[in-house]
């Protein structure tokens, strides 16, 4: 390289804040027009919103009389926070729910910190022992007072339904996807029928069936918990969608990967577990997380079978005569909480993708 080449820098116009602005926002007359109208739109929308949510809002108080009606009245949320977060779960037993949250939080943080050892054990604990802890702690047993699931509600119920749906639907979905691609015609046919039936029915119908029709088929006296029935419905519904997502990933795998695995002597299940699934699941991470987010939001539909999830209970609280007229606050709060959870999943998926990228 000669030195003269080094002396020629990039054109000044490309550099610095001005360069960036010129290049990205004002590169020609219609871009400039769009930029200016965009800024104007933000100017109209943002300040009133900020005023309503923060500046003019009421944060302290205990009754609706403390609300000045200029901005949002967050006292509404604050006063009903127990209902919104836990439903009708007995107040003196709330520590059990919080204990479960705490375990989840600690193990979650442990898994997120890079380079810690024994993450496999923590993962295994979360998948095998933690569910048992959950069942005992939340519904009772081993000396703990029983808490019927009809008392469960609010964000807590949403997390239970979404959590169980997400955790169980992925393995079922993977098995269904493998089954649908199986060389055995009976297996493949059964999986295809299962997937297409569940995918062809709206979730609301599934929930109605689980809640109203299912008991008709059961012998008299046998009574499944309504929540469990809803969980099973959500789980299979989500599994059917995931199965197709996973199948897409399996189909994108080059034939050479199957052949190389077979040539070194891996049996079908080892080939799938060690070579094919790690790669194909990685390819469809965005779609899998998309399904998870959809299921998380779809849990709001359990309202139709009389379970009061997060959104349901916010609507319910809004009908309390003491707090009529505060539904805006309720919905904005619900939207914010839903967004936080969904964005967290999305963020995690991007992180996972980066981490697993081996440059292919």
């Amino acid at each position: 390289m000669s030195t003269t080449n080094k002396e020629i820098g990039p054109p000044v116009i490309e550099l610095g804040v001005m360069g960036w602005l010129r290049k990205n926002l004002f590169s020609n007359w219609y871009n400039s027009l769009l930029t200016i109208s965009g800024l104007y739109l933000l100017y109209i929308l943002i300040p009133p919103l900020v005023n309503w949510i923060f500046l003019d809002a009421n944060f302290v108080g205990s009754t609706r009389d403390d609300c000045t009606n200029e901005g949002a009245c967050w006292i509404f949320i604050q006063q009903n926070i127990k209902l919104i977060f836990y439903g009708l779960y007995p107040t003196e037993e709330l520590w059990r729910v919080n204990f479960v949250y705490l375990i989840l939080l600690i193990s979650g943080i442990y898994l997120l910190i890079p380079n810690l050892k024994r993450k496999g054990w923590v993962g295994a604990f979360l998948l095998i022992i933690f569910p048992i802890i959950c069942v005992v702690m939340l519904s009772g047993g081993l000396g703990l007072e029983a808490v019927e699931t009809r008392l469960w509600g609010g964000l807590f119920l949403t997390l239970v339904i979404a959590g169980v749906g997400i955790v169980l639907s992925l393995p079922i979905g993977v098995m269904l996807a493998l089954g649908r691609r199986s060389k055995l015609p009976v297996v493949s046919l059964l999986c295809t029928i299962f997937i297409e039936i569940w995918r062809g029915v709206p979730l609301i119908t599934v929930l109605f069936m689980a809640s109203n029709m299912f008991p008709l088929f059961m012998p008299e006296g046998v009574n499944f918990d309504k929540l469990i029935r809803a969980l099973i419905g959500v789980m299979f519904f989500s599994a059917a969608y995931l199965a197709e997502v996973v199948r897409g990933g399996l189909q994108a795998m080059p034939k050479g990967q199957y052949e190389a695995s077979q040539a070194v002597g891996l049996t079908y299940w080892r080939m799938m577990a060690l070579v094919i699934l790690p790669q194909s699941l990685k390819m469809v991470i965005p779609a899998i997380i998309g399904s998870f987010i959809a299921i998380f939001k779809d849990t709001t539909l359990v309202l139709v079978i009389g379970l009061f999830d997060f959104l349901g209970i916010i609507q319910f609280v809004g009908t309390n005569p003491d707090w009529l007229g505060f539904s805006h606050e309720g919905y904005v709060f619900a939207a914010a909480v839903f967004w936080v959870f969904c964005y967290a999943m999305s963020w995690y998926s991007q992180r996972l993708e980066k981490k697993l990228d081996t440059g292919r």
Partner: protein
Amino acid sequence: MSSELMIEMKNVHKWFGELHVLNDINLEINKGEKIVICGPSGSGKSTLIRCINRLEEHQRGNIIVEGTELTNDSRSIERIRGEVGMVFQQFNLFPHLSILDNCSLAPIWVRKLPKAEAKEKAMEYLKRVQIDDQAHKYPAQLSGGQQQRAAIARALCMEPRIMLFDEPTSALDPEMIKEVLDVMVGLAQGGMTMIVVTHEMGFAKEVADSIIFMDEGQIVEAKNPKDFFDNPESERTKTFLSQIL
């Protein structure tokens, strides 16, 4: 060299739909023999070696590898795959695993070796193909020649008694072909039984005990290298040789 029979193919036929891709193949390969198979594309040479480890299923005739006949019985297939290593044109390394893990995966899960031992042995073979310094990289970070040598090491880690090579240098840039061929020559000198589908005639001359020319699913000519190049009998062989030499 003993004349222990390693692979025997008797009246093997295979069709892809209507297409007769293998037409009455008869072949006997002894321990330590090196066979090179060449022929125009579509002549069935890849299909032939892929039948030996059941990546393709033959429809008529018998294939016997080390005394075990290939049938639909999955145990016979597994046993044979354990004895037969394969190297592919497109390398087919596992992109989500490091080179070292690529090599130790099957020894750990198929041979049930302890992890440490499997990795130690993998390093040994990587050293033999001279990429032990790349062991912790991922396949995508290696050049084509390095990837193919890693793929050879991966096959060797299973300590196979037979090695199949399916056009191992066809996907490589010219300057990388030699490094792969050198590894293969070394392997041949070590006494490995090898079947190589390739158009590298220099390699064939140097290494092969016999060269097989295939066309339209049939073995047209099978001779030792000297006779194969100096007095080919069939017109098809002569035309083919005139085109590639």
